[in-house]
């Protein structure tokens, strides 16, 4: 995107030599950062680089240990707990902060209800909400309950809310992490509209291509240090990744070994029907990595959950190593050597307020029994093994899982899944929201597992990842399989054409 506002030179909000420590642990070292009116300024960096902390300081949720914040040319101390919104600095959290039971209009005016004579002026709020949504060109009913909206729509409500507060600086934490390509496009159009109105945008993302496309300037953080602030136009994905990691990432994807077409089938799904799943059939061979591409909501997770027995299967057959199976729950599928790794780390994968050890062994607790008692020593040995094998990095082994960075949480979850020594693993978005260095590690682990003879179903919304790892790719759309690609056919263009419904079986 071109710089829409090259003339406006003055920064609206700037951080000057900001440092931050939590207790004795420093997380930011003397950072200089500013954002100008009408500009999109992206912050990139690995997990734990200090992006979120910087964002929280810029929006008043955290106070810097040293350094100053300048807003409109004046040194200010931002009020805590989101009160900076009244000054025009709005942070949109990654986990959107909307109450599910409220209506759209209530959410937009929450805490700033318009009232007349002691009663809320319902009509005026409704009209204003409608007008706001209209300026954003989004079709959301102001009376709809938040809980009925999609994630993308909720984000639009957050943006409408920000505009209603006359936001001059809008800070967004990974807004596209859970959006499909279409939804991302809509979001980018909104951002462009906002910048044209002179709003300054600070934007965090792990998706480098988006960063290049959307931003005017890019700031790279690594280990709490400012590496560089550069114009987006001079940045390439390679140089950006290098700056983030501090090393070259030439081999992001490991070399693919040739799939053995004569290898035995380990998993065979025939005409599977379940909620959100329409007549799915596929085979998986020993040692194969089978990619599942498709837009968010295309039914890939629904297939995985129906296969392992987390959701009810209406009809269809599933065979594991030639034996028909009918799992009533994860316990049975794990016992058969088929494990599923959820994409929802915090909601379904890990007990965030418990330590690493109970998390690692939760799926396989019966392996750590001495008589009827748990053998914690054996659990500790398992954790030590997993820490080495998956390079799980924790401040000290007694931290809770929720305190790990996203990448380390993902590795812990991978360790937990692999503890059950599965022959077949369904990995759902195994690298969502984690930094590129950890992604590379996970890619190599996945390839190594396949080389050992494990079979992997890789569900991912990142096309590059599906292309870089899979021997074969199935593309889903609206609950159905619309294409199956092999070898040279596995290209970004082919997958996109299928998942958009331009080409393929179900398109007719």
């Amino acid at each position, binding site marked *: 995107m071109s710089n829409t506002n090259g003339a406006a030179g003055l920064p609206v909000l700037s951080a000057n030599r900001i440092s931050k420590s*939590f207790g004795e*642990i*420093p*997380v930011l070292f003397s950072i200089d950062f500013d954002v100008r009116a009408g500009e999109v300024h992206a912050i990139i960096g*690995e*997990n*734990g*680089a*200090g992006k979120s902390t910087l964002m929280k300081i810029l929006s008043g949720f955290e106070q810097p240990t040293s350094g100053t914040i300048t807003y409109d040319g004046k040194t200010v101390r931002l009020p805590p707990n989101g009160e900076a919104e009244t000054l025009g600095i709005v942070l949109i959290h990654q986990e959107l902060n909307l109450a599910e039971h409220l209506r759209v209009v209530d959410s937009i005016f929450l805490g700033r209800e318009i009232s007349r004579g002691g009663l809320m002026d319902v009509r005026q709020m409704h009209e204003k909400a409608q007008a706001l949504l209209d300026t954003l060109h989004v079709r959301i009913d102001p009376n709809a309950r938040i809980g009925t909206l999609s994630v993308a729509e909720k984000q639009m409500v957050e943006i409408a809310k920000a505009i209603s507060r006359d936001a001059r600086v809008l800070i967004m934490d990974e807004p596209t992490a859970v959006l499909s390509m279409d939804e991302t496009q809509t979001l980018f159009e909104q951002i462009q509209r906002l910048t044209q109105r002179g709003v300054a945008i600070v934007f965090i993302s792990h998706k480098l291509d988006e960063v290049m496309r959307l931003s005017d300037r890019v700031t790279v953080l690594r*280990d*709490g240090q400012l590496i560089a602030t550069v114009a987006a136009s001079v940045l390439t994905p390679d140089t950006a990744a290098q700056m983030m990691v501090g090393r070259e990432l030439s081999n992001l994807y490991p070399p693919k070994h040739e799939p053995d077409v004569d290898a035995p089938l380990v998993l065979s799904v025939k005409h599977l029907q379940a909620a959100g799943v329409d007549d799915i059939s596929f085979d998986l061979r020993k040692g194969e990595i089978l990619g599942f591409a498709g837009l968010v909501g295309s039914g890939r997770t629904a297939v995985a959950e129906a296969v392992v027995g*987390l959701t009810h299967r209406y009809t269809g057959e599933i065979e594991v190593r030639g034996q028909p199976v009918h799992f009533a*729950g*994860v*316990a049975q599928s*794990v016992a058969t050597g088929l494990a*599923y790794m*959820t994409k*929802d780390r915090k*909601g*379904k*994968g*890990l*007990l*965030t*307020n*418990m330590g690493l050890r*109970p998390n690692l062994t*939760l*799926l396989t*607790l*019966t392996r750590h*029994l001495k008589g*009827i*008692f*748990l053998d*914690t020593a054996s659990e*500790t040995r398992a*954790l*030590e093994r997993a*820490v080495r094998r998956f*390079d*799980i*990095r*924790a*401040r*000290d*082994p*007694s931290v809770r899982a929720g305190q790990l*960075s996203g990448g380390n949480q993902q590795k812990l979850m991978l360790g*937990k899944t692999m503890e059950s020594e599965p022959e077949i693993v369904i990995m759902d978005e195994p690298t969502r929201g984690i930094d590129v260095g950890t992604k590379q590690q996970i890619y190599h682990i996945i390839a190594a597992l396949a080389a050992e003879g494990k079979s992997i179903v890789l569900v991912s919304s990142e096309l590059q990842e599906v292309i870089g790892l899979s021997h074969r790719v199935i593309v889903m759309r609206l609950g159905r399989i619309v294409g199956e690609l092999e070898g040279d056919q596995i290209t970004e263009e082919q997958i996109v054409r299928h998942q958009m419904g331009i080409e393929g079986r179900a398109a007719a």
Partner: protein
Amino acid sequence: MTATAGETTPQVRRPRVRLGALGPVLALVLLMILGTALNGSFLSLGNLSNIVARSSFIGLIAIGATFVITSGGLDLSVGSMAAFSAGMMIIIINGAVPSLGTGWTVVGLGIVAGLAIGSVAGAANGFLVTAGRIEPFIVTLGTLGIFRALITFLANGGTLNLNMAAADTYSPLYSGKIFDIPVPIIIFAVVAIVAEIVLRRTTFGRHIAAIGSNEQVARYSAIKVDRVRLMTYVLQGFLVGGAAVLYVPKFGSANSSTAVLWELQAIAAVIIGGTMLKGGFGRIWGTVVGVIILELIGNILNLQSLISPYLNQAFQGAIIVVAVLLQRGRKMAN
């Protein structure tokens, strides 16, 4: 954080002294000092063993409640259930006296019946919570009313009295001593030790904490969530039955005001002990300390004249609220 990412090798864990962990013990010590200041014989072995023995009913129930609350559940019906179980035991024993006499056979039958009735009542709660998918608060509020009405109905509005001869056989179970230790204290201690081991060292205990921490994660981790939940309510019911088994020999009767507000005392003890009300973490020793703290407060109120002992339950109610406030403060500090 990346700044310390280099320290990956698991090291020997330093035992960290946390005020939160020791809070209940500290409160216990302070109460003992206060009690001694009010009455010199407070710390006598006789008085202390009396206090612990009297707390054993609530103790057994609170141990059960620790399991339920750790799993993210709640059981408000325990007081009514204890009264109902005690009433049923008396009816069964009295009914069996003509055919089986007044010996241990009849008392043993009563004890088995008490434990069984408690377990079945607990299973009913658990079944409604798991299969019925109803909030535990609502289910047990409903059964609280039902059990209370049943004991009033069984006693026909009056009091059920245990057959005198059978009561003579039975009474050593409460008043007797083994190696000079009152029997209820021994039972309380054994149950507490076994419960702590179950909660900390078995898959059942780990699964309970996992479900209380995040039910979805538990389901995705191959844990049979409904079965484990059901078991916590059955265990709670069994221990309520156990409390009735100790109650009947002490009082020899049951009526509509038996065990009123025991749920308040049991839940207060659990929360004082440091078990998280929202589930995910529980500790039996904390509950034991909590039970004794509540009994001490009652005892101290009887020793002084400044505050009316009738306000005892107001203290218990206030303690629950304060304890939960402290839990939240600790969480926010993290």
